[in-house]
């Protein structure tokens, strides 16, 4: 089969399997969590307006916790789930390109995380917008969230998409390199990225979160600027953010493909 056909077949099967509630219930739960929190806050606190709820939860919970966790759960499983299920033998005894298999599976996982996280972000904005009062609909509002301006909504969607691309592919590659991608992925997300993000000067550029902040700082409305941490450091321009996230994605795919070509997966009987 042509390489493109193999890529498509693996991407499709990965996407279909990921959509299964039985396999991905934890991922669905994490994605819904910020919307539930938004609902609780909007219902019980009259001081918060829609913008404050949307931006705070988007920044501190959705982008910094949910996006890395969901992409970790999905990305690392691209190969490691086949190893855990001991089904990888079937794939590795067929005349298919291993890199094509890895890339196809990774793109399938990416399609799933993109769909899910964008839907989760939209739901969060919807709940924040409808659950709290205090403002008239913004003139350039997002259809699902009439109180929120495009300056709040669009940067969030873009940052979610950029984060999904970078993290999913990094964690997919991690799943090829190590037997314990979950542990290493958690350590990377909550220890290493946090450490990089607090380093002085340009060292922050070692963290994916830095580029997500950069995007929001450059494209977001004033509502984002009021959040702690968004406007405190030098940021990359949107063009450079796109370029660097793209590079990270390509390097992750290339490294994972290179490693899987000659890797042995020793399964017990």
């Amino acid at each position, binding site marked *: *089969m042509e390489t493109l056909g*193999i890529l498509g*077949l693996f991407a499709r*099967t990965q996407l279909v*399997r990921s959509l*299964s509630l*039985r*396999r991905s219930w934890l991922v669905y739960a994490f994605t819904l969590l910020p919307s539930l929190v938004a609902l609780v806050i909007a219902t019980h606190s009259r001081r918060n307006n829609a913008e404050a709820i949307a931006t705070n939860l988007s920044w501190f919970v959705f982008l910094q916790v949910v996006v890395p966790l969901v992409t970790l759960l999905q990305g690392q499983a691209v190969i490691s789930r086949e190893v855990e*299920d*001991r*089904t990888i*033998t*079937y*794939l*590795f*005894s*067929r*005349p*298919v*390109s*291993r890199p094509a298999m890895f890339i196809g599976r990774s793109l399938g996982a990416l399609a799933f995380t993109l769909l899910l996280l964008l839907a989760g972000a939209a739901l969060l904005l919807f709940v924040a917008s409808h659950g709290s009062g205090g403002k008239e609909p913004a003139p350039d509002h997002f259809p699902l969230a009439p109180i929120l301006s495009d300056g709040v909504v669009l940067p969030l969607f873009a940052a979610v998409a950029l984060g999904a691309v970078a993290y999913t592919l990094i964690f997919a590659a991690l799943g090829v390199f190590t037997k314990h991608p979950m542990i290493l992925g958690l350590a990377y997300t909550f220890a290493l990225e946090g450490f990089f993000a607090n380093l002085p000067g340009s060292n922050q550029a070692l963290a994916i979160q830095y580029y997500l902040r950069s995007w929001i700082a450059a494209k977001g409305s004033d509502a984002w600027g009021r959040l702690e941490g968004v406007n405190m450091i030098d940021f990359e321009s949107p063009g450079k953010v796109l370029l660097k996230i793209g590079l990270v994605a390509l390097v992750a795919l290339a490294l994972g493909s290179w490693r899987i*070509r*000659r890797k*042995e*997966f*020793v*399964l*017990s*009987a």
Partner: protein
Amino acid sequence: MSGALISSQGLSRWYGPVVGVNDLTLEVEGGIVGLLGPNGAGKSTFLKLVAGEIRPSRGTLAVLGFEPFANREYFRVLGFCPQQDALYEDLDAREFVSFLLRLSGFNAKEARARAERALERTGLKDAMLRRTAGFSKGMRQRTKLAAAIAHDPRFLIVDEPLSGLDPLVRSEMIALFQELGREGVHVLISSHVLHEIESVTENILLLHRGRLLAQGPVPEIRKLLSRYPNKVDIRARDARRLARALLELEGTSSVHLAPEGGRLSLETFDLARFHAELPAIAARERAGIQTLESTDAGLDAVFDYLVG
């Protein structure tokens, strides 16, 4: 390139300090070959090497002229039915086999048709649209086998295919292996249950502690074991009289009379002479032989002898 099915020189594979296969040098000509050995003998490691799942730590291995590890050309002619009881549980049997056929290069329509034929051949036609999650052990084994044969491989590797199966399924599987052998497919079957292999083929490889202990047809191996006597069980009307006469036959090392009478066990180093002389002795002694069974011509005995 040799014409052998499997050819290895000094083949070794270890996992850290644990030796899986140790300095294995062999040539296997093909046909149906049984791979035997107790648990921990190195069978699974050898099969994984031959199936291209792992690399040798040292030495060389060629299968059908290919270096197996991650070799896509080799995988076109290989059918591998692994030991692990793992399937894609969210697929039905036809989807499972079709998916793997797509990976072997068949288009969707052809893959589906081949999957149906293979599942029919392994006796799963009526259950092919059921999810594999609900399958019994025998059905899962048949599904794996269907996936392994659906693309018409030249060489089929089956790892412990008969373990845990009921007698009916087992005999159907054995018949299928024999049929594939007649069709010209080389089949390598591993098992630690000796009589299972014996019912499929006489041609065996015997592994023990990662080394090759013996290779070839069971009777030939048996001949090599000249330091061990052949055992024969005889039921006769007058076993005592027969025992006395056989004890004087050249090559006989011992004769044991069963306490209940009517049966004797004989050990001889010259089985050919024994079979040549027995009719005359039986007639002369009017022993009235009822049954005669060479109890250790079978694989069990060979195996017991070899691994001590």
